[in-house]
């Protein structure tokens, strides 16, 4: 029997599926529901409907409505309910339908989710995950396209994670669920179905707080996350044709930031471009600039450039592509940096 079990496990290790980001998230949720009885899902339309993006497709059917719970339309209510569940030993994963709908729950997150461990000196902690699709570029109605990560990276007591591909999506999701502290898990909805990747069928995790090199290069470092990673990558490919090699770093976790990878890359290239679709002022890019200042000031050959969304509400979708950073805007910043 033992041999059979091992063989199955071994097989799983080497079995992969070609998944989109949304399928990988579904697989990650399924993996956690199957392996940990404390894991429950809560959210709007996640049950019979499988979620508006189908992230929870089939899960209620497989695990029951006591584990995949359709909640009332009540973000503060079900985030607060998840706090109570997590206090009482469960590991709830809540889905906020769109990040722009998280604002009613902001008080719960700011005053309880992020503070419970601190105010009880560790007697209680909240192993909960708040998943939220974020970002513009899919022609969604207003409020559906926000990138509000900086509101949460500024908030002590919660980690902020943002994958850009299917492999990381599953691995980071599993790591987030298994993390003893609360995690805001941002899903780039623009990348949900764009590409496929081989995703292991087994349970694996990608460490929180660690960025990764998407591309290695010598001339410029480009830092991005989520839906901006392919934009940075495209700019890097174009620049190669012009004779410059760019290093593209997917930061993957926005709090805590991977200080080492930022310093390592900037100290090698001496030039840094930060790309994010959230508004520039007070964005995570400012924090990355600050890390570069603290760790690598004397290595810089030119000022750090930021390519970001503008300091305006994300516009209606007819002009949202004007708001979003494009490979052209990134290339312009790279050239400015090189020609400094």
């Amino acid at each position: 029997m033992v041999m059979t079990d091992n063989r199955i496990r071994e097989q799983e290790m080497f079995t992969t599926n070609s998944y989109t980001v949304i399928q990988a998230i579904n697989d990650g949720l399924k993996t956690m529901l199957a392996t940990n009885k404390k894991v429950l899902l809560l959210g709007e339309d996640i049950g019979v409907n499988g979620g508006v993006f189908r992230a929870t497709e089939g899960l209620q059917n497989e695990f029951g409505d006591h584990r995949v719970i359709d909640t009332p339309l009540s973000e503060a209510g079900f985030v607060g309910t998840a706090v109570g569940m997590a206090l009482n030993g469960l590991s709830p994963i809540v889905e906020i339908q769109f990040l722009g709908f998280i604002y009613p729950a902001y008080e719960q997150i700011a005053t309880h989710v992020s503070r419970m461990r601190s105010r009880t000196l560790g007697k209680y902690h909240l192993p909960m995950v708040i998943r939220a699709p974020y970002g513009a570029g899919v022609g969604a109605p207003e409020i559906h396209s926000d990138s509000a990560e900086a509101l949460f990276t500024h908030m002590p007591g919660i980690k902020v994670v943002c994958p850009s591909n299917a492999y990381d999506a599953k691995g980071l999701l599993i790591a987030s669920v298994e993390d003893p502290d609360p995690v805001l898990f941002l899903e780039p909805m623009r990348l949900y179905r764009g590409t496929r990747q081989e995703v292991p069928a087994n349970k694996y995790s990608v460490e929180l707080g660690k960025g990764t090199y998407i591309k290695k290069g010598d001339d410029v470092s480009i830092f991005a996350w989520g839906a901006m990673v392919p934009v940075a990558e495209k700019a890097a490919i174009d620049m190669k044709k012009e004779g410059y090699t760019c290093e593209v770093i997917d930061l993957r976790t926005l709090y805590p930031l991977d200080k080492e990878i930022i310093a390592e890359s900037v100290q090698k290239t001496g030039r840094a471009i930060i790309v994010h679709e959230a508004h520039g002022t007070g964005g995570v890019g400012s924090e990355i600039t600050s890390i570069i200042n603290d760790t690598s000031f004397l290595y810089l050959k030119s000022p750090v450039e930021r390519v970001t969304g503008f300091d305006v509400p994300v516009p209606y979708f007819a002009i949202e592509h004007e708001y979003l950073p494009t490979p052209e805007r990134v290339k312009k910043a790279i050239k400015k940096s090189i020609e400094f």
Partner: protein
Amino acid sequence: MKMKEKYPLMQIVDSSGNLVSGQYESQLSEEKIKNFFYHMTRLRTYDRRGKALQRQGRIGTYVPFEGQEAAQVGSALALDDNDWMFPTYRDHGAALAFGGDLDRLLLYWNGRVEGALPSQTKRILPAAVPIATQLPHATGAAMAEQYKGSNQAAIAYFGDGATSEGDFHEGINIASVFKAPVVFFNQNNGYAISVPIEKQMNSETIAQKAVAYGIPGIRVDGMDVFAVHLAVQEALERARRGEGPTLIEAVVCRFGPHTTADDPTKYRDQEKVEKMREEIDPIVRLERLMKNKNIWDENWVSQMQHEVEVEVNDAVERMENHEKPDPSVMFDYVFEDPTWSIQEQKEDLLERSRF
């Protein structure tokens, strides 16, 4: 029909200390009366000391609950040992009666996080400061009990002002949909700091709001410890039977200010309140009841009062002699493992304090 008639004030002992109906005779054993009297006296002794300590500058801003002892004791003593309590900053009386640690409560008022959690053994959460945010927590803790198949319930405390917040609605609504074993225990003291209940809501009672959730709403005389106790007991039994939440409105009077930083004479006639308390003080009501029943024992009372005085005095002394706060405490419990920035900031602070 007037809502106050539809939701009549449930009472067992009236303000003269008389039983309102023979059907409740069995509720009033001598042991139970004395136990309630002890807890309420203990709470008042602690509460008055809290106010005095603040006046003397020995603790920070204090939130008194004088007048609300019956509501807090009656409800807390209805709980099972393993039930969950979600108090606000004015419910430290309930926390204490339920088994909270007096030393911790005093540390809390002295600005020490070591006292935020009222108990290491009982499931009492730190006081919720943001209004009504604890209601969904009680719902969640209760749903987790449901999920585990246990028989435990949760109670959420909140005031009249909290009923205007969104989380009041969201917490009760979710609990009612899932029939969560939770009791929503409102103490309506008529004021949210200075704003009177008439300006807080257009409905006549808080209990009637239960109709909107399809759950029972009970209005009870919150100055009558027996009525509160029975109402909460029945709501808990209902919760344990799987019949879902109950909204209880305990009508109380806060005799003092909102906090020690508040001056109630600016918004209400304190002389009138003082006059009223002669009639409605919940502890005096118990004294009258005991005298009416010929079980008032002067020796027992003075002995008990002496004991709680000593208990509070000793706790105050321990609070004042508590070891100095360690600044590390602000860094060490934000995450299980401090992030690099928190670690760096901690080292920086400790380094600075060395010079």
